[in-house]
């Protein structure tokens, strides 16, 4: 009898313990949620010193379809600005950009590879430009996709070159499904932007875009093509 009682007491203790843990977890979750939204239920002002595009979903500063990436390039910002300013050279480092033609001093026509072998055309117009610091552009109404972009050349800590930050606001063709498809096919703008910036960095620092093009035992490949 005595043994049994001890046994059930231990069981009770375990249950109580589990109960306390559950309540604590619930309280913690509620506390965190209450922190996220103010007493009136509206998100409170954000305090982090982060770029516009890194906010979590649900925070006040979060913005749908705002994407950004930053890469450090070991060259002065003025030089990098000049290199970027000539949009016709984008195909050298932007994988999905087939061609950029200059229409006038502000406008250029882009031909971009879309999902499944399609191609997308858009015309962009430079909306603002600060020499050595930033360029902003927006797509003209006749474009097949709507996009808005900005590249900034920010001085990195002393001796570390320049932060090149590319921010894009866009509406993907085909909405959510289109975005999912694009991601699967690695044409998703966030992935694309990161890769393009890395290629820009490679080109600016080493004078060439790194490629692993080399032989393999796979019959489908040639030694001059890059492979994943």
């Amino acid at each position: 009898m005595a043994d049994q009682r001890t046994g059930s007491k231990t069981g009770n203790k375990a249950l109580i313990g589990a109960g306390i843990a559950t309540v604590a977890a619930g309280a913690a979750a509620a506390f965190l949620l209450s922190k996220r939204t103010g007493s009136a239920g509206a998100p409170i002002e954000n305090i982090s010193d982060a770029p516009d595009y890194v906010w979590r979903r649900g925070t006040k500063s979060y913005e749908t379809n705002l994407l950004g990436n930053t890469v450090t390039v070991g060259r002065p910002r003025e030089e990098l600005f000049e290199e970027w300013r000539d949009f016709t050279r984008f195909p050298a480092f932007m994988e999905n950009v087939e061609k950029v033609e200059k229409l006038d001093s502000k406008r250029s026509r882009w031909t971009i590879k879309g999902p499944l072998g399609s191609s997308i055309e858009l015309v962009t117009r430079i909306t603002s430009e600060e020499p050595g610091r930033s360029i902003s552009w927006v797509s003209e109404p006749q474009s097949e996709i709507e996009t808005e972009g900005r590249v900034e050349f920010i001085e990195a800590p002393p001796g570390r070159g320049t932060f090149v930050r590319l921010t894009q606001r866009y509406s993907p063709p085909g909405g959510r499904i289109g975005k999912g498809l694009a991601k699967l096919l690695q044409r998703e703008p966030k992935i694309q932007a990161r890769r393009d910036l890395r290629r820009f960095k490679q080109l600016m620092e080493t004078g060439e875009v790194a490629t692993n093009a080399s032989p393999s035992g796979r019959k489908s490949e040639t030694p001059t093509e890059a492979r994943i």
Partner: protein
Amino acid sequence: MRALTWHGRHDVRVETVPDPEIVNPRDAIVRVTSTAICGSDLHLYDGYIPTLRAGDILGHEFMGEVVEVGARSSLKKGQRVVVPFTISCGDCFFCKKQQFSACDNSNPSETSDASRLLMGHTMGAAFGYAHLTGGYAGGQAEFVRVPYSDVGPIVVPDHLEDDKVLFLSDILPTGWMAAENAEIEEGDTVAVWGCGPVGLFAIQSAKIMGAYRVIAIDHYPHRLELARQMGAEILDYREVDVREALDEMTGGTGPDACIDCVGMESHGLTIDNIVDTVKAHTFLGTERPHALRQMILACRKGGRLSIPGVYGGFADKFPLGQLMEKGLSVKSGQTHVQKYTAKLLKMIEEGKIDTTFLISHHASLEEAPEMYRHWHDDQDQYTKIVLKTQFATPRKDEKELIHELA
């Protein structure tokens, strides 16, 4: 050309594949004369490294003759070069700091994404390793495309035969950096786990850097014999409890610095290692860090750990509290080969470092699959294998270098 390709776990073949071509202006094509099989090739052979693809050409220790150069290469046709296994641009922040293996540009943007996902940042590239590190074809082949040929390859004088300089490509600088990372001070006792080629070079380097004592740990008698030849005291862990032995040999203090030349595939029938092996084979884990765990417990308080051994991902049952409470410092990383090649070449020329004592076997590239099997199965006798392509000029004294089996 002929090349060794990987097709799966314990399946490598010598096949005819297309020749490499110059793709970028800084490229060069090297016609390989000698190429070695590395301990880290065994991790690929055993299928421990993710993102290797069937058909990939292996090999990252190679040398040969420059036969073609791109417009911006600084090399000249006909030069004899040893090629570092790390592919480094020489221009980025990391290369300028001489952290060559951390090169920010060599890993193509398509492949570096995966390494960013796994490691937090993009990794530098290497020859003949997984696609995480760039997916560049390797040097167990007759020809290799060498990117950034103006900063990587080191030109070697004709009077030094291949065997003397080949290991500048990886294991010699790796052993050297391992000892450098141990930050050896006067009177130090340095313990080295693993007497493979890197361990043997680490022992030799530690001695050159002034270690008072070096204690080497392994379970292959022949490898331990080579360690002793390099001036180390030796421990066969099948004969003694390593921690007890180290403690007693150092008056209860423990070694001042410990070097892990074992990496992710520790041997030994201990409970933690058996669990790790099961987990690795069921894809629940990537590491078998038994040696590293032991090292942390064995090292003296405030001591240094140097980890040249290769690890691939997440380890568990890691004695983190012990690391912290004992105040150990850790240095690790893939070797910054280009930082050391010139200095070590000079030491080879001056006869200050022995680079051939560990070579146990020579074979032709065609025999590579068989050599991989031996490298995996007969580790006691096969301490280093050098493969020769048809372009190697046999030296008359080469026969003498083939060690007699004990």
